[in-house]
């Protein structure tokens, strides 16, 4: 599979912030969401890709070309759209074309005007008179007019109303339809990604947290919910993120970690507010029934489409156990991208109270 973008071991230090060893690849014909909380390093990564910042280490290849040694050729094949307009506000849409088109050999004036028409942009209207959504579309019209193979968007939907956001996402989906174009899409509005992204690269505090398929990303995590007494200290330490409230807790765990927690409970190693002997009777039957975290949950989720409404409870222990273990009281649900980002950015000690 051809990769449009390859980022390997990219790093850059600033006073008080370090982007460390970022590696990911974007295959041709797909949309990748670059996610992370504010200040996590998304824009720095994009600027390093565009050679707008100098990297300390690593390598970036755009369509196989080095982003520094072959900068001009690489940039002729990519377009970047930022969260706000970067054209002179006093220009009209038509003047924007005059100013920029000369830099691109493949610029197609007819296509530019067709796009203006499609996006309902008046060529005589000044950039400053266009709404934020329209300015975004003007930048996209320019990008599409020279057939950019890779489109890099840095938080394009922030500040857009829901209608404009929806339009933008539709445009992006159309852009990759032919399988020849790809999009790297940085955002902290993760709802956009649920709809459009095929791949996710998640950067947290300057480090790569995850890169891979979106479904794989979502399936890798589960949200567990339980009562106030359902969270022993031993398990607490193994949670990725935790939010406690008077009526209980919500936590993010890795799907594979859920199995380990179950195993811990089976072996009676979980000692919470309840007595250790409470768990001793938990036999193998319960353990088998307990296999909800991985396969079954994932299957249920995919069978239901979006999976949002799926809730899986831990096993019917009542026939096997005299007294329940803390994990028996948990409700396990698939996690959304938003929940994963929120929990992982806070960390296990940040209970949000």
């Amino acid at each position, binding site marked *: 599979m051809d990769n449009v973008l390859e980022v390997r071991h990219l790093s850059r230090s600033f006073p008080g912030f370090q982007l460390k060893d970022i590696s990911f690849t974007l295959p041709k014909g797909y949309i990748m969401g670059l996610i992370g909380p504010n200040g996590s390093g998304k824009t720095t990564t994009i600027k390093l890709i565009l050679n707008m910042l*100098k990297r300390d280490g690593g390598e970036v290849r755009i369509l196989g070309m080095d982003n520094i040694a072959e900068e001009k050729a690489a940039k002729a094949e990519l377009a*970047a759209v930022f969260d706000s307009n*970067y054209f*002179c506000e006093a*220009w009209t849409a038509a003047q924007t074309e005059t100013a920029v088109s000369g830099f691109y050999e493949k610029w197609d004036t007819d296509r530019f005007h067709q796009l203006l028409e499609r996006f309902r942009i008046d060529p005589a209207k000044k950039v400053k008179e266009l709404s934020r959504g329209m300015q975004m579309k003007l930048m996209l019209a320019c990008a599409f007019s020279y057939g950019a193979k890779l489109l890099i968007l840095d938080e394009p939907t922030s500040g857009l109303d829901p209608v404009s956001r929806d339009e933008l996402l539709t445009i992006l989906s159309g852009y990759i339809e032919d399988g020849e174009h790809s999009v790297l899409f940085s955002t902290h509005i993760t709802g956009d990604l649920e709809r459009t992204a095929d791949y996710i690269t998640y950067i947290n505090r300057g480090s790569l947290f995850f890169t891979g398929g979106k479904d794989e990303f979502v399936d890798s995590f589960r949200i567990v919910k339980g009562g106030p007494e359902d969270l022993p200290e031993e398990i607490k330490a193994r949670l990725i993120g935790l939010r406690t409230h008077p009526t209980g807790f919500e936590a993010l765990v890795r799907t594979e970690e859920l199995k380990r927690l179950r195993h811990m409970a089976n072996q009676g190693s979980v000692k919470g507010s309840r007595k250790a002997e409470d768990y001793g009777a938990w036999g193998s039957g319960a353990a088998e029934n307990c296999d909800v975290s991985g396969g079954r949950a994932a299957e249920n989720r995919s069978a239901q489409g979006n999976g949002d409404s799926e809730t899986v409870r831990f096993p019917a222990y009542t026939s096997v156990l005299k007294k329940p273990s803390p994990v028996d009281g948990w409700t396990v649900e698939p996690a959304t991208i938003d929940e994963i980002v929120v929990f992982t950015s806070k960390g296990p000690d940040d209970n949000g109270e």
Partner: protein
Amino acid sequence: MNETLKAARLDFALLRPYWKTLCFVILMPVIYTGVARSLSAGISFEMCMLGITASYTFAISEKNGMERLYGVLPVARRHLVFGKYLLICATGLLALGISLVTHTAVLKALGETVHAWEIAVSAVIGFFMYTFYVVFQLPGYYKFGAVGGKMFQFIPVTGYLLTLILLPRVDLNSSALAAVLGRPGMLAGAVLLGCAAAYGISIGVSVRIVKNKEM
């Protein structure tokens, strides 16, 4: 199209919406020429005013956050610098030409006699002063931006005031000055050579700044 020309065209596109302001800057010193009744004084003032406009493209691009556009365009950074210098130099020469014609016309309309050598001397002085104002300003704007480097806008004003203060103190009867003025061709050549060298050094410094600059 050559990359330098493309970059110059992009900068020209930045200035185009402000053509009325530029026309005002170019034509307004005519009034000064009319009052002072001196072509060289008027041209000096003209070049001072025009020198201040060197920051326009920087200010416009900074105001519009266009560094991000420059970062995306498939053009080498040095060509962006060459393009800006080309446009600014061309603007200066064009404005100088227009000024020499309009100011001479105004003086003649006021009944003054304007000799050909006066026009030639004014042209050389004007070009020299404009170069002097611009070559120090541009690297400053590249380094600090139009807002951060606002102090560089005072270079033309300072230069013009120094000219006003120092010029009357020059002994017009000195033999050295007579020797220099006695060879006008050589003087013009030396000035042009000096200007070219100044532009070369200034461009070199600006390219170095831009190459190391992070956007």
